């Protein structure tokens, strides 16, 4: 049989071996990021927004950058924003960073169960959200709080949600940071990774079905691109030319797993676009101007019926994955300081200074004001309670919104919960009982 012959001829071959990716640096290692190709700012061509998707393919393996070491904007991707817009972008970043600091501390102080920072990735949510129209629907993952803040969502509402207090618009049902803000075109965040990506495509398809001009923009992490939903999203976006921007924030880490476990050793995330026949861009995610320019390019493309774009924002998750994570267990502490693309807030600040539109005093004042603003919102929110025993909402609200109306079986369970409440707390409100 042929099988035997094959076995014979394979006799000299070395045994197969499984390749299991390994990050370059582990705790204690010296970090050398010289292998990361940092391109020349301004050197990347900017194709027409209505170009064939294929024209963008060289950009999928490049890195679009605008801000140089000279803190000046270079090349065709310079969005040429006025200083007022740049200052607003910087101020939103300062506010987001201050918010993250305060909420992280709030978790450590036991005011809530959980928090996630976006430190180092502010440009990927704030600069990008600013490039969209206010009514374009944002389908975020859990690390785009900057987008919500950039849309002017009240900080106190965010903190109420994080503390699950009596002011929480989501009625204490959701894990902290899983915001929902329809009035700000910010879609309800799910704990299930990547589910929002094909949903964004569906939203874009709906907008196209109705002949609307709205588009959808969605964010997903590098790790979550491995989910099947990402493939479905790219396929449907391509098939129906949905007006959608798929933003992949490649921050190098998915909890403890480096991006190699999502296939980054073999191809860029932007290069995934090539196989689907959709436009792809790869962008310096710590360059606020490049982030803005790429998102605007993709939004204009989507809005003019030219189809979807996949953008990879090459960045770095400067902090731990969440308050439940300690990155010193899996990566070198030097990585953050050695990261070759720097810090997005510092880069934007230095750009404004180089333009003669900003100075260190202004920055110090801005940072202080941001901290004060967060502190004031936090003080107000705390008046409505912190997590504590968690029972800040009337018990019966637990049974609302499962369905539009409360069916008989939930009505019965609601009665049961109210009987339990009375046994536990008497006629008093649980808040008073504690």
């Amino acid at each position, binding site marked *: 049989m042929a099988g035997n012959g094959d076995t014979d001829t394979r006799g000299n071959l070395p045994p197969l071996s499984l390749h299991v990716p390994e990050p370059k640096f582990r705790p204690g290692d010296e970090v050398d990021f010289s292998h990361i190709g940092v391109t020349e700012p301004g050197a990347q061509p900017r194709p027409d927004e209505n170009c064939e998707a294929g024209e963008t393919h060289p950009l999928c393996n490049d890195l679009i950058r605008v801000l140089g070491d000279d803190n000046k904007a270079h090349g065709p991707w310079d969005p040429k924003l006025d200083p007022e817009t740049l200052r607003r972008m910087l101020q939103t970043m300062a506010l987001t960073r201050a918010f993250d600091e305060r909420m992280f501390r709030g978790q450590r102080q036991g005011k809530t169960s959980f928090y996630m920072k976006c430190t180092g990735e502010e440009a990927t949510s704030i600069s990008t959200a600013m490039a969209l129209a206010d009514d374009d629907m944002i389908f975020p993952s859990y690390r785009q709080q900057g987008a919500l803040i950039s849309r002017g969502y009240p900080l106190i509402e965010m903190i109420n949600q994080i503390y699950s207090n009596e002011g929480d618009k989501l009625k204490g049902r959701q894990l902290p940071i899983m915001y929902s803000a329809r009035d700000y075109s910010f879609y309800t965040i799910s704990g299930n990774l990547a589910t929002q990506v094909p949903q964004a495509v569906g939203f874009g398809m709906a907008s*196209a079905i109705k002949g609307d001009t709205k588009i959808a923009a969605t964010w997903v992490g590098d790790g979550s691109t491995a989910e099947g939903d990402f493939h479905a999203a790219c396929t449907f976006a391509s098939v129906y030319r949905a007006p959608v921007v798929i933003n992949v924030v490649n921050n190098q880490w998915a909890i403890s797993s480096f991006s190699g476990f999502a296939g980054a050793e073999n191809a860029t995330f932007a290069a995934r676009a090539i196989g689907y026949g959709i436009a792809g861009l790869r962008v310096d995610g710590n360059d606020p101007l490049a982030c803005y320019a790429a998102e605007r390019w993709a939004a204009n493309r989507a809005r003019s019926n030219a189809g979807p774009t996949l953008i990879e924002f090459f960045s770095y998750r400067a902090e731990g994955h969440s308050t439940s994570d300690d990155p010193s267990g899996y990566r070198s502490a030097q990585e953050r300081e050695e990261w070759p693309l720097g810090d997005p807030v510092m880069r934007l600040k230095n750009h404004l200074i180089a333009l003669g539109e900003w100075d260190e005093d202004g920055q110090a004042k801005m940072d202080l004001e941001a901290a004060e603003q967060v502190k004031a919102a936090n003080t107000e929110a705390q008046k409505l309670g912190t997590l504590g025993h968690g029972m800040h909402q009337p018990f019966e609200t637990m049974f609302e*919104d499962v369905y539009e109306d409360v069916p008989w079986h939930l009505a019965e369970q609601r009665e049961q919960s109210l009987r339990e409440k009375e046994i536990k707390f008497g006629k008093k409100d649980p808040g008073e009982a504690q």
Partner: protein
Amino acid sequence: MTTDTSAPEAKQKKAKPGEDGERRLNMIEAINDALDTMLGRDDDVVIFGEDAGYFGGVFRCTAGLQEKYGTSRVFDAPISECGIMAVAVGMGAYGLRPVPEIQFADYIYPGYDQIVSEAARLRYRSAGEFIAPMTIRSPYGGGIFGGQTHSQSPEALFTHISGMKTVVPSTPYDAKGLLIAAIEDNDPVVFFEPKRIYNGPFEGYYDKPAAAWRSHDASITPEGYYRIELGKANVVREGQALTVLAYGTMVHVAKKVCEEKGVDAEVIDLRTLVPVDIETIEASVEKTGRCLIVHEASRTSGFGAELSALVQERCFYHLEAPIERVTGFDTPYPHSLEWAYFPGPVRIGQALDRLMADI
């Protein structure tokens, strides 16, 4: 991922009103009519799925709709149940009323995360800011030599999900009225269509010629808009001796066996499994004192277990015999041994004998 092993024999022809003005439709035509009615009434209704557009569906349920309403209302989809469910959720968030089709219920699992984690929870987790007013249509059930992946009855995987409604029609009249109600409902609904009875009622005898719907009164289907409220069961036969709880194909099978054995059964077609019509169930079991639950799906943790528990909890002092469940066996759905697996007349008959033994 789909193989059509069970397409109906011939392309369906739309029924015309007869001389007496009655319009008799089979279940496929009734579903098609419901979709046509809702596409015409509500510009936000959109229909899509594998082969659902140009071709009109492998069971012809969407035949002619794309031609009538255009490709932006009725269209073909990639072979991706996950994608189909997800874009329906996104469309709902926009404000549309999507009616996606999953070609066989056996293939709904790739879309399960989107249904369970997203569609079912959207309203709850956003405190009503976003809703998923979608109706997932899917042919389901066995009795057609569909083997393991064209025969399943996965309703229990959906009745267990808070936030989902689950509907199974058993007649053309019900299929149209319930589907219209499901599409209009602002909650996500999974609408399982028993494909064994698409063309005619099935009473459990695989070795007898199949009947057509035309000779059955439940094929008389009004033109235009009407709805059957979700959550309301239908007492298809009134009786005193025992209560039969069934849905889909098994309504017809169970009713036939009761008639053959001369048992004065009250046969209840649940129609909606969640929320189930508990009042009708309670009233009936309190009257009869006996309860037989029949479904095609496998036994362990099937929806029958929930029904049995509800009846036991709420009608305990009225019960004169243990509640019986007649179901599929706890095996994957077999091909050649289908009629050994199917909960047909013999299995139902034996359960009736046990239930009625002490009378």
